[in-house]
Each structure stands twice: as structure tokens, then as C-alpha cells.
């Protein structure tokens, strides 16, 4: 029985937003009479990640969090904090010392803390890592040459040095470094930041300057050389907070204190890389960190959920649409061939059937040597899985046409091609469409496994959720996947009403009697 497809589709679209709405309601109910903490961040990845981590801790402590992410610069954030527009933001000791307090505080953290307090801001204890200028080289080469700190460079005068233009020009850059360590290298040139990394990877330079938590350090397997003569200023990460936060939101303030010393340089590099290279969201990365480090199963921020659900929907839908279109282009002709040539048809149906029996994970793994990881092998696997339902239904649709109709067409003198186009395919269309619909629904489900080989989609949160034992995260993938399957069905029901002749539909027949 065919029900009005339009209504069913409408239901699907409305329900797509349900988890989001549910999350916001949940949060709204929890937020009643809880203090509000406003958290700011600067306009770069690391700062946003730290702000999200702080936000997660405050939320866990029962505070309502307002995020003011990616604000202009250091001065702007500092002033926003002093004028009570934000309560917390992440910064670095070196920045506060040199850019805000203009080198007034004496040496040492205590002096810096006092100077900040005098200005009206409270500095947290160090979060555990530094983001300072650093000197790096390829891990393999460093190991071969036995270089682990900057002093060791003195023994290798033939190394080629390439520094960013900024580092070359600053007084506290290359010239100071050379003087402090007495570096002998002659082959030194200035490069753009990205070029420096590329030069290092392609072996055209051996040593460069970088920031000690750059994502590229992980990506390119670089070694940070220890600043054994303490040439670079300290840029330890801290939180800058309003002093009265301790009274206004004591629980949140205590939660933030837990961050002290909890983030290592390696942690920060990993998180930066997860965002900048793997394309994950800052909030998701922060949430994972909180789960792993503090066992916090973070409530989801609805904007973050919407954004990542949209992103994953795009990934998932494009996987399904591409593989399905490709499958239709191949499977319909195959089905026609199978219907025309009986023996060949058996072979075609048997082989597509066998494809279907290969476990998804095995098929994905088979694809890796040929197509690598990512979207391509997932597309190929989904394409292969989509063949069977479409081939079989095309075959069944064509062979199921009454002999008398085929005979009628032949008796009119209609050539075979015209018979196929004008008679057979239109008659088989409901069956073909049903096959495509089946393939689409299966495809939506199977595509969740694409995440196993890096194809993204709704499988991503399901995998993360399983890894972190986070049921909410699993639902974040599973619910949209189920809704997408329903939506796909709706789309095909709608399509059926448009392309299938009224003469073939149940409602026409019903009207007759």
C-alpha cells in the first residue's frame, strides 16, 4: 500500500531537528538559577580549544556558559575582562608580561601575578604547557645527529637554517639566538611560515623556528630542541580571570583550578592537530579532552551540535548520493542486460549477490591498498553494496512484465529499443525505484561504517562515542542516520509520485471500482 508520500517526508524533515531541540531544552532546564560565566578566546585554534575546555569545566560545575570565541587581539580581550564583559580567557605569561603590562613586573611568576592583580585581573596557575618560540628539526635527522637541545647545534655547522621572516628581523629572534648560543651556521635564510615547514619536510632546510604547540609538529614528525640556555621568554599558558569570580561562581572557579598543570605540550599539539589537520571542531576536541582527563561527559552545546551535525550530514549525504548515483548508472543497464540474456543474467545476479555477502569491514579493508583511506574506498564499497538491490529489482521489473504486453508491443511493429524505452522501462519503473530506494536506505546505514576508514559522516560520533563510552555522542550519529534513512525513503516516495505513471499506481486502480 502506498501512503501519501509528501506527508511522510514532511515528518522526516521536522524530526531532523528533534535532537537539537531536545538538547537545548535539557540545558535550559538545568540552567535555572545557575551563575553565568562568560568565556572569551583569541582568534586562533589553540585559544578557542582552551576556552572550550574551560567552558566544559564550568558547565560541569553547574554554571551557564556564554562563549565569546575568536575575539580580536590580546588588548581587546584584556580590556573586555577589565570592563566585566568576559570573566575568563586563556593567555600566555609572556604576552601578559610584554604586551599588557609592558615589562613593568619584575622577573618571575609571582611578580607577574601581583602586577596583574594590581591591574584588576587574576592569573591562574600554568595550565601545563608553553607556547613559545622554539627551534625544531626533523625527528629522524635529530636522532641521527644526536641533537636534543639548541646547544647541540653548535657541533653541526653544515646544517641549513631557514627561519620565518619575522624571526629573522626581531631583535629577540635569530640574531640574539646566534649570539646566546654561539651558533656557527652560515646557510641561513628567511622564509614564509608555511614555506619553512614545507622546506623542512622536503629536506631543503634542516632547522626552523616554530611555535612549540604547532599542529604541524605532529603532522611532520618534528623534534623541538630544548632551550637549554633559556633564551626564549616564557610563554606559559594561563587563564586570565576576573577576581570576583570566586564569589560569584565558586564552583566554576574551583573547576577551572583543576586545569592547572593538566595539559602537556604533547596534549596541546595533538588537540591543535585534531582541529587544524583532521578538521574536527574545537568543541569536540575539548569535549574529548575533558572526558579523557577529567571523566566529564560534557553536555552538548547546541550550536556545536548543530554545526557538527550539519557538517557530518553533508559528508554523509554526499557519500550516499555519489555512490548511489554511480550505482544507478551501472546497475540499471546491468539489470536490463540480465533480463535480456538469461544465462548472463544468472551470472550477474549471482556476482552482485556475492558482493552483498562480503562483510562491510572486510570490504573496506580490501579497498585500502587500491584506494587508500578516506572517501574513495568508502564510496567504492557503498557503490558495490548498492548494486544488488537495483540490479535485482530492474531484472525483476523487466521480467515481470506480462507476455501479452510485450507481444502487443511487438505486434505493433515497435523496434526493440523503442519497446524498451516506451514500454518496458516505464512498466518496470516502480520496481526499479523500489530497488533504488532499498539501496539508498541500506546505503545510509552502511555509510556510518565509512568513519572507520576516515570517510567521516554520522559514523564519526558513533565511533567516538563507543571509544569514550559516551552514549549521547553515539546518539548524535545514530539519530540523524536513522532520520536520514527515513528522509531518503520519503524522497523516493515523492519521486515515485512524480515519475511513475498514474496508470501504474494503486490509487488509479482503486478509483475504477
Amino acid at each position, binding site marked *: 500500500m502506498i501512503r501519501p508520500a509528501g506527508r511522510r517526508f514532511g515528518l522526516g524533515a521536522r524530526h531532523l531537528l528533534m535532537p537539537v531541540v531536545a538538547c537545548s531544552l535539557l540545558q535550559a532546564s538545568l540552567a535555572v538559577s545557575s551563575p553565568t560565566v562568560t568565556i572569551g578566546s583569541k582568534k586562533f585554534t589553540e585559544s578557542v580549544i582552551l576556552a572550550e575546555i574551560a567552558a566544559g569545566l564550568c558547565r560541569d560545575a553547574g554554571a551557564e556558559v556564554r562563549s565569546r570565541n575568536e575575539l580580536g587581539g590580546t588588548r581587546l580581550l584584556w580590556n573586555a575582562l577589565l570592563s566585566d564583559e568576559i570573566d575568563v580567557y586563556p593567555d600566555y605569561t609572556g604576552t601578559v608580561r610584554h604586551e599588557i603590562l609592558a615589562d613593568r613586573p619584575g622577573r618571575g611568576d609571582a611578580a607577574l601575578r601581583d602586577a596583574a592583580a594590581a591591574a584588576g585581573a587574576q592569573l591562574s596557575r600554568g595550565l601545563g604547557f608553553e607556547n613559545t618560540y622554539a627551534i625544531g628539526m626533523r625527528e629522524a635527522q635529530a636522532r641521527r645527529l644526536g641533537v636534543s637541545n639548541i646547544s647541540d647545534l653548535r657541533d653541526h655547522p653544515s646544517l641549513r637554517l631557514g627561519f620565518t621572516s619575522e624571526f629573522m628581523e626581531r631583535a629577540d629572534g635569530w640574531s640574539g639566538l646566534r649570539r646566546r648560543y654561539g651558533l656557527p651556521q652560515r646557510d641561513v635564510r628567511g622564509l614564509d611560515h608555511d614555506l619553512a615547514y614545507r622546506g623542512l619536510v622536503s629536506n631543503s632546510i634542516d632547522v626552523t623556528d616554530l611555535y612549540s604547540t604547532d599542529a604541524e609538529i605532529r603532522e611532520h614528525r618534528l623534534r623541538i630542541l630544548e632551550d637549554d640556555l633559556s633564551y626564549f621568554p616564557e610563554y606559559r599558558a594561563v587563564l586570565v580571570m576576573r577576581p570576583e569570580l570566586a564569589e560569584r561562581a565558586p564552583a566554576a572557579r574551583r573547576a577551572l583550578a583543576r586545569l592547572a598543570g593538566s595539559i602537556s605540550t604533547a596534549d596541546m599539539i595533538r588537540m591543535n592537530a585534531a582541529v587544524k589537520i583532521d578538521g574536527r571542531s574545537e568543541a569536540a576536541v575539548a569535549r574529548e579532552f575533558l572526558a579523557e582527563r577529567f571523566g566529564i561527559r560534557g553536555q552538548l552545546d547546541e550550536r556545536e551540535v548543530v554545526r557538527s551535525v550539519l557538517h557530518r550530514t553533508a559528508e554523509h549525504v554526499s557519500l550516499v548520493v555519489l555512490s548511489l548515483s554511480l550505482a544507478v548508472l551501472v546497475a540499471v543497464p546491468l539489470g536490463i542486460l540480465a533480463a535480456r540474456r538469461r544465462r548472463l543474467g544468472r551470472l550477474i545476479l549471482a556476482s552482485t549477490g556475492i558482493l552483498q555477502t562480503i562483510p562491510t569491514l572486510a570490504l573496506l579493508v580490501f579497498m585500502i591498498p587500491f584506494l587508500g583511506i578516506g572517501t574513495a574506498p568508502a564510496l567504492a564499497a557503498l557503490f558495490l553494496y548498492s548494486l544488488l538491490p537495483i540490479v535485482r529489482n530492474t531484472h525483476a521489473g523487466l521480467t515481470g512484465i506480462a507476455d*501479452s504486453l510485450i*507481444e*502487443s508491443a*511487438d*505486434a505493433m*511493429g515497435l523496434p526493440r529499443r523503442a519497446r524498451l524505452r516506451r514500454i518496458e522501462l516505464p512498466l518496470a519503473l516502480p520496481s526499479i525505484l523500489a530497488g533504488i530506494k532499498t539501496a539508498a536506505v541500506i546505503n545510509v546505514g552502511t555509510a556510518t561504517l565509512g568513519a572507520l576508514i576516515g570517510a567521516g559522516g554520522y559514523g564519526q560520533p558513533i565511533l567516538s562515542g563507543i571509544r569514550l563510552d559516551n552514549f549521547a555522542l553515539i546518539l548524535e550519529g545514530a539519530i540523524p542516520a536513522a532520520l536520514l534513512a527515513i528522509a531518503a525513503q520519503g524522497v523516493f516516495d515523492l519521486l515515485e509520485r512524480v515519475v511513475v505513471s498514474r*496508470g*501504474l499506481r494503486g490509487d*488509479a486502480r482503486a478509483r*475504477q471500482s
Partner: protein
Amino acid sequence: MLELTKVEKSYDGVRVLGPLSLRVDARETVALLGPSGCGKSTLLRLILALQTPDCGTIRFERIQLDEKSAQSARRRMGYVIQDGGLFPHLTSKENVALMARHLGWSDSRVDRRTAELCELTRLPADALERYPSEISGGQRQRVGLMRALMLDPDILLLDEPLSALDPLVRRDLQSDLREIFAALGKTVVLVTHDVAEAAFFADRIVLMRDGRVVQSGRIAELLERPSEEFVTRFIEAQRSSLPEPAA
């Protein structure tokens, strides 16, 4: 017009037809009559070259039918089967115009011809836009006839055209059909198992049994000078429905 010579057809080694020879002249209306399984429908299929005879020849307008000549020959034959054989995904009009469209007829030519046939077959105009599942059995049969006549064929082949209809509709269509045949003046070959129907339509009845012609002639000849006992038995069996013999 149509000439079959020593035609034979077997399926899986079992002969279902022939050897059989038959001549149909132009403008003649012939009924192929016989019990089911006597090979009359097979004979019609051979004429349409939907199946090829194992041996013997079939000539249509002096041209021997084979795979090459079949397609153009079919376009000069109109074929009507039980319940019309309409394509369910096309409206009545699309069914009627299918072949003309394929041959590239203009809209106006298609419309003109359709209107002519609509009048001839007395099909209500609103049935044209309906699908086969939305019209009555009698209307379906009229649409089937229109479709067969669309290209103005030289010969009309009908396979049990009335047997799917209930008696009242059947009687109406029967008399309409006879008028149409008379008006068109075409050669007609009609397959039926019904003696009354054969007698009603045909100048000549070809009575068949087990794939062969038992007797061929007017109904009166079959009644008065049966070639064998089967002729009398077959006709007697349906006697009650036979019209009064002409005075």
C-alpha cells in the same frame, strides 16, 4: 492478401499446428473457430511473425514473412487481443498514438486520426485521457481497436476480442464491431471459440482441431455438409446460442 502454405509449428517436439494451408482474400472476414488448444491463436501469432513456422511459408501481400520483413508487415496489420492488451502506464490516447508517435507523426495528424477513430469506435471522448485501469472493459476493447486501426492497416487480426466482456457489453460491442468491419471494408481475421460469434461476423468460418483445418466455409455449409462428425458435434454443443438460420 494472406497465404499460408503447409505451415507447421511444434513446441518441445509436440506439433501444435499444421501442416496447414490457408488463403485469405482481400476484404474477406474470416473466423478461425475451434476448441481451446486447437492452434488458432498460434496461427494468428505466426501471421504476425511473433513466432516463426518450423516449415512452410506465409505470404502477406505476396511478400514472404521473415525476420526482416516482419516489422514493416506488422505496421500494416492491426492486432487486437482479449481485454485490449493496452499498456497500463499510458492513457488511452497515448496507447492509440504510440506507434504513430514513434513514426514521427505531427500532433495535429495524431489528433485528427484519433478523433476519427473515436467516432468510429464510439469511444466517449473523456475516456481518451484516462488510463486503462480507469475505464470499463468495453471501453478498453474499443481503445484496443483504435490502436490497431491507427496506422490504417490492410488487415485486422483479432484474438478473442470479446471473451473478457460481460454479456450486455459484449452484445453492444459485437454489433458495433460488425458495423465497423463493414464500414472499413478491410480484411479481417478473427479468432474465437464461440460459434455464434464466428457466424455473426464472418463470411467464412475455418473450423480447426488439433492444429489442422477440419472444414472451411459458410456456417450453412458447415451445418448442412459437415466434412466429419466433429463439425456437427462442435456446432451442436453451442446450438442453443446460435441465431435462427436465415430463411
